[in-house]
């Protein structure tokens, strides 16, 4: 299952910020520089702001976010194509960046010549290309067209060839922008199989995509970037959930907006721990006792309501898995002040990462007063088999004749 191990870091980005200057008229001509001087009207735009990303060896990280969030800029900074305005980037091992398929292709050259040129750009020696050429050719399915100029290729043939070069370059770190699965369905499947091969070989992959299904099925980790900042970094399912929340696609169209805050109560923190009120712990096994301490403040005001506290444990895709609530008659008193609410729960036989949502309701009416979601994941590991629930079962095998 997908658990965050601590492999040696391959990509380390610390405090990375990237500022773009959009000149209303860019002084690319000397004349303008002399005429206008340096003080032309420029608009600063921070594409990245204080981004910290550490990617360990063997991780497959999906970088997701709305359009213009800074994903591609981050990828370019990590690839060393753009220089960060602040912060530093370290990359260990051979890195191949695939920001555009066939970026180095020249239409006039034949497929074969382009393979050699492109591979040389990606850092391959001629002898290595000689060795890899048959494999590239076979994977690309372009054997009969390889000596035609690529300007005569269809767009599908073009990306197939470009993709096969890229995946045969055999980097330690693969940075990919939006091009993980290309071509027709059969070829796209082949691409994904190749990516899985990469994963099994312990390669590190970081890719930008808008295909959220790919993130949940392929990644060991998801990073959500929005407005230049990392909004979430962790379990891919939650990353997808967080992004859908940002995009507003997390609820079916027409569903009512949840009431975020009527007033009265603020949920400051929800800390899961192995001991009551102990330090935060993110890792439990079935049968452990999980202590969840909530820090809730009832704000002073003209009317302070009493409050029922409800906690929902949610799994991938924000599916509620189980809930807890304060029992009848032990609500938060209708007095301003700060309260600790301690829940203790025996961890059920679950698998995966979970987050908690906390909601305070008015006891009489059941109307929600406030709700808040805490995105730090609580990992529960029970069994080896895939599935949210680990179900004990017995299996017997009989000979078919004996049964009938």
């Amino acid at each position: 299952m997908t658990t965050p191990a601590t492999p040696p870091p391959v990509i380390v980005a610390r405090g990375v910020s990237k500022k773009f200057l959009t000149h209303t008229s860019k002084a690319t001509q000397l004349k303008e520089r002399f005429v206008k001087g340096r003080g032309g009207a420029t608009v600063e735009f921070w594409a990245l702001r204080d981004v910290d990303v550490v990617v360990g060896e063997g991780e497959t990280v999906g970088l997701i976010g709305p359009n213009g969030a800074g994903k591609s800029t981050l990828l370019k900074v990590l690839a060393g194509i753009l220089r960060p305005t602040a912060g530093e980037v370290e990359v260990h091992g051979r890195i191949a960046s695939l920001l555009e398929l066939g970026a180095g292709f020249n239409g006039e050259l034949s497929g074969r010549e382009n393979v050699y040129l492109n591979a040389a750009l990606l850092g391959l020696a001629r002898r290595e290309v000689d060795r890899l050429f048959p494999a590239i050719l076979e994977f690309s399915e372009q054997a009969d067209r390889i000596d035609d100029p690529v300007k005569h290729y269809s767009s599908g043939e073009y990306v197939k060839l470009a993709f096969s070069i890229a995946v045969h370059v055999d980097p330690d770190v693969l940075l990919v922008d939006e091009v993980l699965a290309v071509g027709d369905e059969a070829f796209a499947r082949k691409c994904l199989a190749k990516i899985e091969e990469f994963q099994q070989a312990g390669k590190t992959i970081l890719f930008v995509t808008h295909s959220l299904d790919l993130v949940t099925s392929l990644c060991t980790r998801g990073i959500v970037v929005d407005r230049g900042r990392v909004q979430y970094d962790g379990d891919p399912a939650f990353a997808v959930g967080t992004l859908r929340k940002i995009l507003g696609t997390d609820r079916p169209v027409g569903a009512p907006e949840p009431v975020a805050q009527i007033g009265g109560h603020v949920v400051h923190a929800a800390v899961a721990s192995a001991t009551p009120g102990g330090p935060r712990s993110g890792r439990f096994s079935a049968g452990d006792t999980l202590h969840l301490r909530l820090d809730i403040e009832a704000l002073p005001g003209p009317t302070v309501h009493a409050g029922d506290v409800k906690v929902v444990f949610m799994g991938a895709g924000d599916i509620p898995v189980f809930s807890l609530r304060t029992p009848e008659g032990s609500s938060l008193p209708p007095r301003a002040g700060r309260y600790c609410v301690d829940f203790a729960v025996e961890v059920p036989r679950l698998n995966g990462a979970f987050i908690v949502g906390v909601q305070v309701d008015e006891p009489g009416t059941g109307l929600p007063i406030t709700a808040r979601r805490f995105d730090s994941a609580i990992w529960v590991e029970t069994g080896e088999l895939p599935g949210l629930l680990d179900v004990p079962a017995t299996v017997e095998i009989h000979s078919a004749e004996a049964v009938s």
Partner: protein
Amino acid sequence: MVAPASTGPDRASLGRARAQAQSRIRWELLSQLVRKDLKVKYQGSVLGFVWSLANPLFLLGIYYVIFTYVFAQDAPDYHVYLMAGLLAFTAFSQGVSGASVSVVGNAGLVKKVRFPLLVLPLSGVGFALVQLGLQLPVLFLIALLSGVNFLHLPFLLLLPALVVLVVFTTALGTLVAALNVRYRDTSHFVELTMLIWFWLNPILYAAGYVQSALTDRLGWPDWTYDAYFLLNPMATVVSTVQRAVYQDTYYVDRNGATQQLLADGGYAFYLRNLAVALALSCLLLWLARRTFNRMQADFAEEL
């Protein structure tokens, strides 16, 4: 799913091996890029590489006709003298012009692929040098057919002259390639400069004419003639290539007067000029690389 952790020293030795392989890969990348440029340039043309000879040969023909019949230049085998200087300077001007647009012209690559960007201006220079490599044998052939036997000791001067040509062209090409990314005027400026620079070198006129013009007609001191070569590495390259191939320093014109065609009859003059030109070129190369390395981090952004 998690790979076995690689240990520290393992990684370090891998790094060293890669650094060694790096320079070889750069050369291969460079040769691939030059090959690409050559192929793309002559793709689909029937005559192909012949065109790389046609241009200088036609230019040569035009200059020859004008200077022999209009300006009455009567040095024997003037066309060999003319071609020697012309080819050297064309390689320089094409190399620098090609390099100046090399980064901007490959914007798609620079923005999308990480590779050593320095190979871009080098490929522009390399392209011009390959052309020179095709043109020089033609020069030798024409010289031999015209009865100019250049296979004597001065011919060895060709080698250091070409070294200076390569270093100087690379240096200037690298510098303008980097500058052209930020100031697109650079490539236009380079073109204009090359037009003027062509006439600053003794290509069409005799090098000896420069000496008499400076000292006799203008009355300037003798050292101005030395300065003419020492300050302009291309004048040194051009005059040395002429000395290597043409060889007859003086000739007698139709009025019976002795005229000096080459810059100097000896060796010391050329060797001194070459040494200074090489030193200047190396200095410029160092400066150009520094500038390029400093500016290249912003190329992807500025393109």
